[in-house]
């Protein structure tokens, strides 16, 4: 063996991992943008051949978008839809996370109430809308309730499963230091469950979106869901796609927001996993 502890001229930095280098150097948003651009381009190209009463293409949608902006119709509908959406979703998060934590932590609650959460998630809610109308009327409230009911369950269930996946050894740290039940919940279970809660919140967004649209279809027609229905009924396909795509874009943005929130409230998570969050 030869020893060589003298400092040599610094060698060039070598970055070689298993993956090809360009995948790590090109930022994610560039790839995403490219991918969306290509998809949009293909749609534009092939979409133009389709009967406009049945299908449409991006530039027609953009045109419809601007004309709906000008009349203010889109903004009004967006405001109309977003109020029950926001209220329903936020209440679902505020109620769903603690309920999920409790269900996961206490066997007795799980045995007594878990079945309703499982059953509630799988209930064809759409069939129960008339009952909801009976209790909550036709306006803001029933829509917020439908959004709440649809987004509550994925948030609650994911949290619940997350708690059950917390390793015993971690909880034992709390037990060993005589942490109270509340302290274990807040100081150990909650942070350890954050990835699951965040997954639940993201899944919840998708469900909340479906919720608001269903509510606007099945109760008094209004908001973005109302535009979808009215446009579909008069074969203004491009117009119909404006709210559909707007909803998609907003949902994707909200999902990204939750991802950002996760990095903010649980910065250690992405460090441990070595991934950026979505």
């Amino acid at each position: 063996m030869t020893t060589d502890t003298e400092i040599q001229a610094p060698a060039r930095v070598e970055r070689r991992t298993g993956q090809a280098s360009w995948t790590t150097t090109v930022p994610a948003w560039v790839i995403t943008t490219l991918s969306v651009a290509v998809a949009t381009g293909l749609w534009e190209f092939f979409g133009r051949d389709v009967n406009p009463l049945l299908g449409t293409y991006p530039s027609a949608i953009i045109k419809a978008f601007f004309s709906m902006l000008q009349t203010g119709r889109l903004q009004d509908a967006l405001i109309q839809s977003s109020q029950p959406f926001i209220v329903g979703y936020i209440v679902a998060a505020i109620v769903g996370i603690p309920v999920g934590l409790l269900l996961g932590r206490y066997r007795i609650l799980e045995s007594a109430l878990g079945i309703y959460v499982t059953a509630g998630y799988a209930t064809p809610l759409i069939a129960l809308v008339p009952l909801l109308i009976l209790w909550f009327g036709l306006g803001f409230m029933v829509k917020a309730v439908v959004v709440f009911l649809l987004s509550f369950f994925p948030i609650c269930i994911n949290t619940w499963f997350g708690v059950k996946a917390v390793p015993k050894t971690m909880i034992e740290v709390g037990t060993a230091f005589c942490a109270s039940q509340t302290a274990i919940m807040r100081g150990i279970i909650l942070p350890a469950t954050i990835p699951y809660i965040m997954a639940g919140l993201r899944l919840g967004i998708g469900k909340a979106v479906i919720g608001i649209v269903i509510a606007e279809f099945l109760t008094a027609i209004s908001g973005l869901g109302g535009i979808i229905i009215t446009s579909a009924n008069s074969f203004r396909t491009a117009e119909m796609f404006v709210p559909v795509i707007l909803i998609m874009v907003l949902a994707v943005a909200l999902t990204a927001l939750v991802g950002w929130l996760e990095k903010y409230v649980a910065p250690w998570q992405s460090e441990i996993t070595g991934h950026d969050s979505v």
Partner: protein
Amino acid sequence: QEAWRHGIVEAKGDSGFLFQAAEGGFDDKHGINIDMVQFTGGPTALKALIAGDLDSFEASPVIALSALHQGADVKIIGCDWPGMTYTVFSGKDIASAADLKGKTVGVSAPGSLPDIFTRLALEASGLANTDVTFANAGGSADRVKAVGGGVVAAAASSSEFAIDADALNVKPLLKGVEVTPQFLKVCIMTTGKKIAERREAMTNFLAAEMEGLAHAIANKDAMLEVARKVGHLPEDDKTAEFIYNEALEYKAINADLAIPLEKLQWVDDEMVKLKFLDGNADTKKFVDDSVRTEALARVKK
């Protein structure tokens, strides 16, 4: 001003008539404020009516009949659109109703207006119910698309879709006003409880409706304007005009809201025949004509 919540199902080109009372200022004139609430489905709206969230609701009586047969506290208080402006559309390759034999016909939910109308229209054209397969092909526009797309051979929908018939690759095969003249398309309904509680406002509401409809019938431009505004229709839209012409041509619309009792009974009998309803009923007891009579007097004054 007293608020009045009135429910309707999927207004399209016909909104120039339906919204005239609310949009044309006739409600203000009678000291009420009509709040038009739109629904995609009749049964949900009817339940909202029964639950008390709506004050009145207009739709095909077909929706209400099964509830009425089960003793629901629903009353028909006027019929603004007795004429059956409904059409069975078919693919271009279908020459006559007979060609539909063995094919699939699109309807919406069993027992709903399109379903019953299609069955009766086919029957009137000599096709038995067993000669075709019925399938749910969605809402009124979706059913027409399904015909154009070849998913079903024919489907019933509001006649206004005839305007886009070529583009949609469909053709009007059977017109309701011709094959089922007895069919009653739209009536206004409320509950007995509401009549007792808000008789005065209801009278004003019916009065406003009567004046609104009369105004729309007399002023094509007013009708088209409201239709454009409510339906967010583009300038080149032809549906509203089509509906206007059709309604006048077939006298499908009735500004004094008279309730054609014999037509109502006919619909009920046919539904019993089709086994959508059990047992016969005297449809007179579903009707309360008194509010309309008072409203008529108020309008004449």
